[in-house]
Each structure stands twice: as structure tokens, then as C-alpha cells.
């Protein structure tokens, strides 16, 4: 569904991604694990076109989307939920959702404000509240809901558990399972092995801009050596 081949990316002169290769299969949750600064966020930004890839190839649903503009990539069916959430602070919850709304996609049940509220019921009570006056967990729900409004076929979630209380993290895990059940594919970036384990089918480990390990989540849980080498702090 999403195939990334030997992707390179730079911030100015700093070479950050050194040939990332990664495949997300349809209907699966794929987790990208790695320490701070390993390049998880940069990988997602490069896929999304927010950081222009300097070499390599990104293929989505059989089309080459390398070097396209972010809005085109989003319209092709790729949703992106940034690590910093980037809620529009002065817009209300409902207006934030509106910014994400795109045309329905044939063959997919279209997302609506109501469906987002079904997924995250706690948002209903604050539909008129400015996004800037919400807790971290609520903002995380809102930013996911906002991307879902674009009816993506694959959604990239960059560290959705960051800074959240364990109860909320469990709610995120439940939501990701719902999305998977809907048939959505998910590329998840995480440092939280608990959340990764709870939802993922497959895993890749990134370190210093390169994928060091790829396999099923179960295989990773069995591979203590790999976990210790790349993940333990």
C-alpha cells in the first residue's frame, strides 16, 4: 500500500535520512520504533512531502508520490498526524475538524464530524471550545479526528502517546484498533513499546536515519537482543 524505497532527506545541510526503506501493507498497523532523534518524524515528513526527499522514492497505492506537494499527497489518501499535533489554537473543535474535511472517497464510508465524535465521545462536549484551550489528550484526539475528516486510506500517527497519561494512551490504542477494523492502514511512530505492542502487526526499527530491523511485532517481542540494541535507553 505504502512503499518507501531508499529515502534520503536533509534539513539544510544536515543529512538526516540515509536511505529509509519501508513497506506498509494494506489493512495493517505498522510501527516505526526508534530512540529520540532517530528519524521517525523526519521519515513521516518526507513521505508527506513536508521535507522534500533528496533521493529515493515514495509509492502510495501504486502511484509515485515522491516530491509531490503535501496537499496532493493528502488528497491521494494519506493522512498525517504530526507529533506536535498542530491544532489551530483559535479555531473551535468543530472548525478544526472542518479544516480537514475533503471529498468522500469511492468505496469508503465517509468520515463526518459525527463519526469523529463517535470515535472520541469526549470531544462532543467541547465542540465550540477553541483548540488552544484543550488538554493534551483532547488535542491528540482532535488532531487524529481532523486527519480522518480527509477520508485517508492510510494514516500516519507520529507518537500519539507522547506526554499522555496511561489511561488516555489506552484510549488511543482502542481508537487505533477501531481504525484498523474499518480497514484503514496505519503507520505509527512510537517510543512507547506498550502502545506499539498493543496495536501493531509489524514493526521497523530506525536508527540514525536507517532501518535496522523489520519484522512482525511478535518477532520483535521475541528478539530481546534487537530490542536491547536499538530501543532500551
Amino acid at each position, binding site marked *: 500500500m505504502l512503499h518507501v524505497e531508499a529515502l534520503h532527506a536533509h534539513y539544510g545541510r544536515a543529512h538526516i535520512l540515509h536511505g529509509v526503506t519501508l513497506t506498509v501493507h494494506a489493512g495493517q498497523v505498522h510501527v516505526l520504533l526508534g530512540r529520540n532523534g532517530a528519524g521517525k518524524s523526519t521519515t513521516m515528513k518526507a513521505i*508527506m512531502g*513536508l521535507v522534500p526527499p533528496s533521493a529515493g522514492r515514495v509509492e502510495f497505492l501504486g502511484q509515485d508520490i515522491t516530491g509531490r*506537494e*503535501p*496537499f496532493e499527497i*493528502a*488528497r491521494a489518501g494519506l493522512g*498525517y498526524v*504530526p507529533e506536535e499535533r*498542530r491544532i*489551530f*489554537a*483559535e*479555531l473551535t473543535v468543530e*472548525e*478544526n475538524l*472542518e*479544516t*480537514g*474535511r*475533503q471529498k468522500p472517497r469511492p468505496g469508503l464510508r465517509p468520515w463526518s464530524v459525527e463519526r469523529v465524535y463517535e470515535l472520541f465521545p469526549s470531544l462532543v462536549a467541547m465542540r465550540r471550545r477553541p483548540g488552544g484551550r484543550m488538554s493534551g489528550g483532547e488535542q491528540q484526539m482532535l488532531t487524529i479526528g*481532523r*486527519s480522518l475528516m*480527509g477520508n485517508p486510506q492510510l494514516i500516519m500517527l507520529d507518537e500519539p502517546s507522547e506526554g499522555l497519561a496511561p489511561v488516555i494512551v489506552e484510549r488511543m490504542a482502542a481508537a487505533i484498533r477501531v481504525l484498523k477494523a474499518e480497514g484503514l492502514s496505519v503507520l505509527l511512530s512510537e517510543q512507547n513499546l506498550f502502545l506499539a505492542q498493543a496495536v501493531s502487526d509489524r514493526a521497523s526499527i530506525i536508527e540514525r536515519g536507517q532501518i535496522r530491523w523489520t519484522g512482525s511485532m511478535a518477532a520483535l517481542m521475541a528478539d530481546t537482543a534487537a530490542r536491547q540494541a536499538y530501543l532500551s535507553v
Partner: protein
Amino acid sequence: MTQILVQSLSGLASAASLFLVAAGLTVIFGVTRIVNFAHGSLYMLGAYIAYSLVTWLPRGHFPFWGGVLAAALAVGLIGVVVEVLVLRRIYKAPELFQLLATFGVVLVVQDVALAVWGAQDLLGPRAPGLRGAVDVMGERFPLYDLVLIAIGGAILLLLWLLFQRSRFGVLVRAATADREMLGALGVNQRRLFTGVFFLGSALAGLAGALQLPRESVNLHMDMAIISEAFVVVVVGGLGSLPGAALAALLIGQMQAFGIVLFPRITLVLVFLVMAVVLVLRPYGLMGRANAAAIVLPPEPPLRALSPKGRAVALAALLLAIALPPFLGDYALVVLSELAIAVLFAASLHFIMGPGGMASFGHAAYFGAGAYAAALLVKHFAAPMELGLLAAPFAAGLLGLVFGWFCVRLSGVYAAMLTLAFAQIAWSTAFQWVEVTGGDNGILGVWPSAWAVPKLAYAYLSLALCLGGALLLRRAIFAPLGYAMRAQRDSPLRAEAIGIDAFRVRWLAFAIAAGFAGLAGAVFAFGKGSVFPTAMAIPRSVDALLMVLLGGVQTVMGPLIGALAYTGLHEQLLRVTQFWRAALGAIIIGLVLFFPRGLAGMGPRA
């Protein structure tokens, strides 16, 4: 009591027009981050087009209001054309270049208007049925102004509805906060930008068209309104629509009561308010910090000239010294103007390059020097020598005063504040007729007898201006210059090693002002006269163009830029009466084809 009421009503009427112009400007800035100098030109076009339509159509209610509306829509479309042809290609260019490109548009529109409508003021018809005045508690108040207030209120309401209730409005507000994120959500920014440009331009056009019954249409409308609109937008906070409304009310009232209470200094008052607001609230009444940064072109370390470069520079200098005796009078005057341009550019370069500050009002100090010298000659019968000596100190003093405010701010706000101060200086020269002669200027500012011959004056200009430029160059490589670059490149580290960034910037600003003042004085004695145009916006833009043309981060930049720009200017003046349009087109072309900075054209020195 009634007088106060009538004054505040007339303040509301000006606020209504100001708001229409400022609303478009601020929304365009919020979404595209472009400070659109050409917004005033769109306002002017609105007035001209409405004039043509309304005088061409038969008289009556429907043709009048239909003409006004059609003019607004036409200007909206012109705005779209400008966006698609010019601005769309330079959204990623540094802000300074975008600003210059929009100034290029200003120049082109100026000449188009001149070609189509001529240079004379045009007086449009009054609005049908609204010619008279109404009785407001015994005082007469123009009926049309009441209608204008109502229209202003209605547009405010409509805009509020548009921004709160429509998808377009939600997207515009989202883009103002974080347009990259909005793009990642699938929103095509180009469409949004074009839409915003249409809306903003149409509002400016409407404001211009609505002025038709109030004042004559002329070629100065663009600069007059744009500086006021900048004030409103900056006072309100860049990108904030409610801020623009609030600031328009404030400024409108200031103008209305200023005319009664301080008739001499109304213009100054407005800019003073802006300065005070910016010092108290650096992002305006309702603005946010995220709109701030001006990105100067990338900055390689500054190096002294290579031996080869040094040889070339020396040869050029020798040539400039050896050549004058063989030149005719006209060429000598041009030579002297070139020297003045070099010093003027070098003084701006001093704060922009090593200092990392942008000034949009450098003409203030050029003009201050020119006026200081001229006033000494005129009112105290001082000799030229004294005038030349006093000018840099007078301008430097002004630089100390204005700089104290300006160097605290950065980015667009700093640029706007320097512009505002320059407008204060300009308004003073323009309005203080007893002292400065106002628009008629000061005549009879002639050099001392020995410097009257063109050859002598050319040598004097060369000596003072090139000497000044060389001194500035020395300062760049002196401790002050190192401190300036340190605070520019890394404010925190500079502070850690004991550099007081504020004082360094302040001092640099004043020094640059002083040298600009010297250039201004040489200019005054060369022309024999001074006019307010010596400190008007176009002269500030001249300086910016010269610096950017030569490259901000090159030592020889201002020299090359000043020579290239002055040469170009001379040539254009000679070959076409529409030299403004030609210059504007060249500026736009340069920015379009070298969006990473004009200095990227050649090898860096």
C-alpha cells in the same frame, strides 16, 4: 459637545475607509505572509476605475452604485492577476524581495494610471441623492459620510460572518495560524491565496471607489493610503482582522480630533501612535509573535577583499580620481550623484549586512542631513562647510532617537516601524511649512564659492562620500563590526561574552544614520535645493534596492549596487517617459528570476 460628536462621526467615516483597506492588507498578510506594498495602488485603481465608469454611465442611483461595485470587482480581478503572475512565484523568496516585488508593482501601476488617466487631479461626481448634509444636533454633517459609516459597519459584519461561518473563512483563519499544516490536510494553498487576494483587492478597490464623492482622484493616493494602512495593520497586529477594525477606529478618531487640536501635526501624530503601540506591545494590539521573522538572504562569513579584489578596487578609485578633469558638466553631476548613492547604500548596508537589521525608512536620515544643511544655510546663512559638518550629527541624532525604538523589534515589525518613523520625518518636512517650506522645499542651498564649479564639487562629493564609505568599511572590521555580527548570528552567545546587543544595534543604527545624513547634505548642495521627496518612501526603496542588488553580505556590494542602480535609473530616464514602469518591471523580473536573492546572480566577493 456637539462639536465632539461631529468630529467623532467624521472620525468614524475615515475609520470606515481605513478599515476596508487595512482589512484586505491584513488578511493577505496573514495567509500569504506577504507585506503588499501594492495594496495602496489597488485602492487608487479602484478610485480611477470608478471615476471612469461613473462618468461614462448615465446619472442615477443604480449607475453610481453599480459603477462603484464594478470597480471593486475589477480591482479584485487585477489583484488576482498580480497574484498569479508575480506573487505566486515568490512565496518562498525572502520577505525583503517579496516586498520589493510588490513595490515594483506599485511603480508599474503608477505609470499605467498616468498613461490612462493623465497627471491632473480628477473630480468625480457626487453620489446621487447624498449631496447634502444632515443636521446633527445643530451641526451640519455630510450625508455621504454617514452612508460611508454604514457601509463600513456592514462590511465589517459581512467579513465577520464570512470568517466565522464559511469554510473559506475557517480555512483562511487556519492558514493564518499554520499554513503548512493546512496543506498537509489536503488544502490547496494556491487556491486559497488567490481567493484571499481577490477578496483583499476588491475591498481595497471598494474603498478607493467610495472615496470618489469625497476627494479628487490623483496619482498620490497610493502612497498616502498605504502608509496609513500599514499603520492600522501594524497597530492592530499583522494578520488580525479584529485588530485592523480596532486600529482603524483608533486611527480614524486620532485623525479627526488631531485636525482640530493639532492641525499642524496630524500626520506625525498617527505615526507616533504606531511607534508608541509597538514599543508597548511589539506585536500590535491583537497580533501574535509567529508572524515576525524577516529572513535575510543567507550569510556567508564576511571576508576582507582578496588581493585581486583590492587591486580592482584601487584601480576604480584611481580612475574616479583621474577622470573628472576630462568630463563635461553633465557627466560630473552624474559622477557626484553616483558617489552620493554609494555612501547612501553603504550606510544602509552597514546595518543590514553586518547588523542583520532591515530598515525601510533609511531616507529619513538622508533627508535629515539634507534638511539640516539646508536649514542652516537658509535660516542662519551658514557656509556650506558648516552645513556639511553639521548634517551627519543632526542625522545621527535623529538616528539615535528613532533607533532607540526600532532596534528593539525584529522582522516585519521592525521594518514597519522604521517606515513609520521615516513617514514622521517626511510629514514634518511636508507640514511644517514655516520652517521647511513644505512642498515648495528650500531653495538656494548653494555650495561655497570655491565649490561652485562642477569639477570642484565632483571632487568634494568623491572625497566625502568615498571617504565615508571607506570609514564604514573600516568599522565593519573593527570591534564594533565584530560585535554587530556576533549579535546578528547568535544573540545568546554574544550576550554570554558580554556584548550588549541593544547598545551595539543602537550605536550601529545611529552611525548608519549619520553617514546617510552626510550623503543627504552632499546631495542638497549638489542640487541647490531640498524637497520632502528626499525622505519619501521611494528614496528608502532606492537604498534597499541598491543594497540588495549588490548583495547584502558582500563588502563591495553597496558600491556595485549603487553604481548599477544609479546607472540603470539614468538610462531609463533617458530612454522612456515611463521609466517608473520600466524600473518596476525590472525589479519584478529580478525577484522572479533570482528569488534566492539578487546577490545570487554573481560570484560573492
